[in-house]
Each structure stands twice: as C-alpha cells, then as structure tokens.
C-alpha cells in the first residue's frame, strides 16, 4: 500500500511525501542490520589482530605459494606476490584505520555539535561565523589539504586523521543548525523555558539528545566511511601506512601491478573489502535517516 503525505525531514524543512511501504521498511531494516554487522565484523577483526589471533603471520612470506588463487588449501582467500596470506593481511589491515577513524569521527562530532548548536540557537553573527567556518573548511579540498600537511609536517596516521576530523564537521554543523533553528520555534521549547527548566537541560537534553540523536548517528556513520576512504586512498598514494605493514589501500596498490597481467585477485580482494565497508556505512546512514523520518512523521 502506498500513501503520499507531506513530511518534515530531519532538518525541519517540509519535504515531499515519498511513497512508503512495507517493502521499503524491510529494506531499511536490512540496511541498518548490514551496517551493524559490518561494524561488528570490523571490531572483531581489530580485536583479533590486537591479540594476535590470526591464521598466519601477516609478514611471513611463502615463496612456494606465490599468487595462490581463491580457495587454495590452507589459504582460503589466496596469497599475494610474496606468498603472504591475504586473509590474514586483510584482518591486520583493519588496524591501519580503525582507531584513527574512530578518533576522527569523535573530533568531527564534537566540533559539529558545538558549532551547530551555537549557530542554530543564537543565529545572527554566530550563525554567520559558523557559515563562514564551514564554507572555509569546505573550500580547501580535503585530500589536497592532507597532502599539504604531509609535505609540511610529515605526520603519522593519527595526525592525518585529526585533520580529517577537523575538516569533517561542516555537514553535521549545517544540518544541526537548520534542525535547532526549526526546533526552537516549537511550542515545547517555549513551554519548557516558561516552566523554569534550565537552559542547559533544554539545550543538551531536550534538543540535542531527544531530537537530534539520529543526526549524530547518521553523521558518525558517514564520517566513518569517509575516514576509511581517506586512509585507504592515502595508503594507496603511498603517504599512509607503508608496506610491509598491511593496509587495504597499500594492498590494492601493490596488487595492482599484477592486475594488468590478469592476476587480479590480490588487489580486487582489498578493493572489495573497502567497497563493502563503505556501502555498509553509507547504507546504514541512509536507512537510519529514513527510519528516523518515519518515526518523526508516523
């Protein structure tokens, strides 16, 4: 059954009624479940590599078994050009971005929340200043900024991810500003003020926690995907994690020499891992956004 109706999106603007049906709800649930599953697998892989619960040593070369294909006995996902087990390197590769990316997400959430709340609540000059900061940060292409930082500071991956976090807030800040501006026009805001609830409680509990939780989760998921994309891109370009330490980016890079010979598995496997992870985080964000909108417009 399809119903057309007018709904408000999470920014508070009126948006068109999309047809929403049982099938779409099912797809949204599947998207959210997929995102959670992939995050769980990543956490598991991270824990496994931290404690050394690995099938092989990721640096152990087996020169008798170079470029073993998928499904070889002993090496389920094959081996690379040194005969190193690809499955092990894939698991250890999670190490390269997991903690740094989580840090980047935390940084961008903190800055985005502060700026968005201030701009949405105060408006005026504060709003203009936030708009200026967001536009300024978005004007410098992030990959180029990171390459500039690499040239100038020669940073490690944590500092690179700090830059990614510091430049990742404009999306959240802009959406939060619109949302809070919409919410403070509502009567619940006024009545809470009139009944003597402290401004702190209204801002952080009523507005941020009760009404903007979905935005944070959506942004965190997108930011995690972006951070992973940046880490893999930089490792691919040779500025992130260096061979022989595995990262999905430098695995694609080293494997790509063999791709043109037709031996495409060593670079396609990490590329597929990247793609599945990114799709999971983006799907989670999209599905969760629609779910939150349905909740808001029952």
């Amino acid at each position, binding site marked *: 059954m399809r119903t057309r109706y007018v709904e408000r999106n999470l920014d508070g603007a009126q948006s068109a009624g999309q047809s929403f049906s049982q099938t779409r709800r099912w797809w949204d649930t599947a998207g959210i479940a997929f995102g959670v599953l992939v995050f769980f697998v990543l956490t598991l892989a991270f824990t496994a590599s931290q404690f050394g619960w690995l099938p092989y040593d990721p640096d152990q070369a087996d020169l008798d078994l170079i470029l073993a294909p998928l499904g070889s006995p002993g090496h389920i996902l094959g081996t690379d050009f040194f005969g190193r087990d690809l499955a092990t390197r894939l698991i250890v590769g999670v190490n390269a971005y997991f903690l740094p990316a989580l840090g980047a997400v935390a940084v961008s959430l903190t800055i985005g929340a502060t700026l968005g709340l201030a701009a949405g609540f105060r408006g005026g000059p504060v709003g203009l200043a936030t708009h200026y900061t967001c536009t*300024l940060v978005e004007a410098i292409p992030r990959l180029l900024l990171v390459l500039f930082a690499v040239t100038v500071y020669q940073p490690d991956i944590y500092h690179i991810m700090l830059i990614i976090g510091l430049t990742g807030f404009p999306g959240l800040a802009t959406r939060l500003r619109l949302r809070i501006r919409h919410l403070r026009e509502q009567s619940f805001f006024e009545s809470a003020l009139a009944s003597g609830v402290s401004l702190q409680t209204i801002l952080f509990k009523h507005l941020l926690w009760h009404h903007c939780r979905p935005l944070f989760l959506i942004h965190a998921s997108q930011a995690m995907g972006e951070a992973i994309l940046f880490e893999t891109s930089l490792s691919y370009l040779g500025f992130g994690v260096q061979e022989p330490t595995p990262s999905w980016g430098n695995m*694609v890079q080293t494997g790509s020499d063999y791709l043109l010979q037709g031996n495409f598995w060593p670079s396609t496997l990490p590329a597929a891992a990247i793609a599945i992870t990114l799709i999971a985080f983006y799907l989670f964000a999209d599905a969760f956004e629609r779910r939150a909108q349905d909740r808001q417009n029952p």
Partner: protein
Amino acid sequence: MRIKRSAIRPIARTLAKELAFTFALLVGISVVVYAMLVTAPNSHSADLATARPAEQTATPAYFHWLAGLVQGDLGNTSRSGGLVADELIPAAGHTLFLIACAMSASLLVAVPLAVCAATKRFNGLSRPLLITLYLSSALPSFWLAYAAIFVSTHYLDYFPVVDGTNIDWPITALATAILVLGSGLATTAARELSSELTRVLSQEYVTAAVAKGACLWRHAYVEGLLLPILEIAATRLSHVIGACVIVEQVLNWPGLGRLVWQAAQERDTHLVMGAVLACALFVALAHLLHRTLHVLMNPRASHMGY
C-alpha cells in the same frame, strides 16, 4: 529571466554581501595555509613563510608573503627550480577540462534518472540503474581505474593512459577518466536531484499549475532542476578535485592532481602550497558564481539570512 524592478536593490545588496564573503573566504584560506607553513617543523617551509626583503620593513611577514601571492609569486619548485606558476597553470587547465567533462557527463546521466525517480516513471529501468550507480560509487576509484585499464586493454584493444606530458587529448584516456570520476558524482547528483525534485513537485504552486492545465516543467524546472544542479556542481567541486588526485595518478593525466602527488613525494612545499591555494581559489570562485546565479534566478533568496 525577468527581474522585478523592486527586486533589484535587495539582489544588489545580497551580491555585494556575497562578494565581501568571498573576499573574507580568500583571506581565511591564505591565513590557514600561512599558519600551516609557519608552524612547520621543517625549516625550509618556515623560511618560505618568514622570508623578508633584505631591508627590514615594519610590515609583518604575513603581508609580505600575501603581497607575493597576489602578484603571482608562488616561489620556485625544488626539483627544476622553475617558477611554480609556470607549472601550475597548464596543469590546472588540464584538470579543469577533465572536471568539466566529468561533471557534464555525470549530469547527463543523473538528470534523466532523477526525473524518472521523482515522477515515478520508467521505474523498472531507472531503479536498477540507480542501484548499480550506488554500488559502483562505493568502489574505491583507484581500483576502478585499474579495472577500467584492464578491461580496455584486454577486451577493447586500447591503452587508456596518457604517455608523456606532451598531451594531445587522447579520447580513450579522457573517457576512462570521466567514467571513473563521474560514477561517484552521478550518484550523489541523482540522489540529491531526485529528493529535491520530489520536494518541489509536491508543492502547492505545482499542484495549482497542474490543475490549471499548465505545463509542469515550465513552472518547476528552475526550482526543481536548475538551482539544485548549480548547488551540486558548486559544492561537489572540492570533492571532485580530491578525487582527481587519484584518477590522474593512475591514468597519468598531466593535471594538478598528479602534480600535487609528485610534489608531495618530493616534499616540494612551494608547489603543493601553490596547488592548494589554486584549488581553494577555484572552489571559492565557484561558490561566488553559484551564489550569484542562485540569487539572480531565485530573487527570494535575497531575503534569507544565515
């Protein structure tokens, strides 16, 4: 595009504000880049920032550096010793050409898809296409480029990589680059366009226009298509420039991205700084152009504050 007489004054005021905003943006960008140069532990980079003329003047080093920038003096490259500007300008031309091609191609794909999605026509064709685009846009572009090279060399019998720097626009390399750059762009464009178009088509003036028997698109195309296309082109430019670094590196396209990649490997601070400033300048100017066209096409926007 007709503008009411009474709208001219608010539009002019908004445009003046946007101009001032862009100026402030350029100053802000230069401050950020300068701050990074000054705080560099590497003495070579710091020298660049604090280099003063022989006679000590009262002006701070920042203004001296800025004056040099405004006159186009970006310093010398460390590998050839030539002027940075001489290397940047042709490379920037190649990159802008590539971006223009990729953007037009992806809009050519995205607009019909978005219209189909918003009007719920040809769903059987447009839905699978959208899903394919969505999935392909998550594939890392560095792998996608190699896969494109592999497919074209093995099955289509051409090698889509630019050889040498003496470029005569090989169409095969251009097509591959457009494919790789455009897939992500087409996805975001199609998604944002279709959601915006759905919003506009459900508005009351569109319903009224349809009820009167007027042509739907004559009333809705500015708000539903032109403004969002402008916005996407302006806001995605910075992402596309970032993606160019990877695509140009794989396909050996002699543009800004490949130049930055090489310069960052050689720790050539002047060249990377020049490229960052040039790209930020493009993005800021694109932002200004977007705001100008937006206000001219939609004078209501001149009444909105931040």
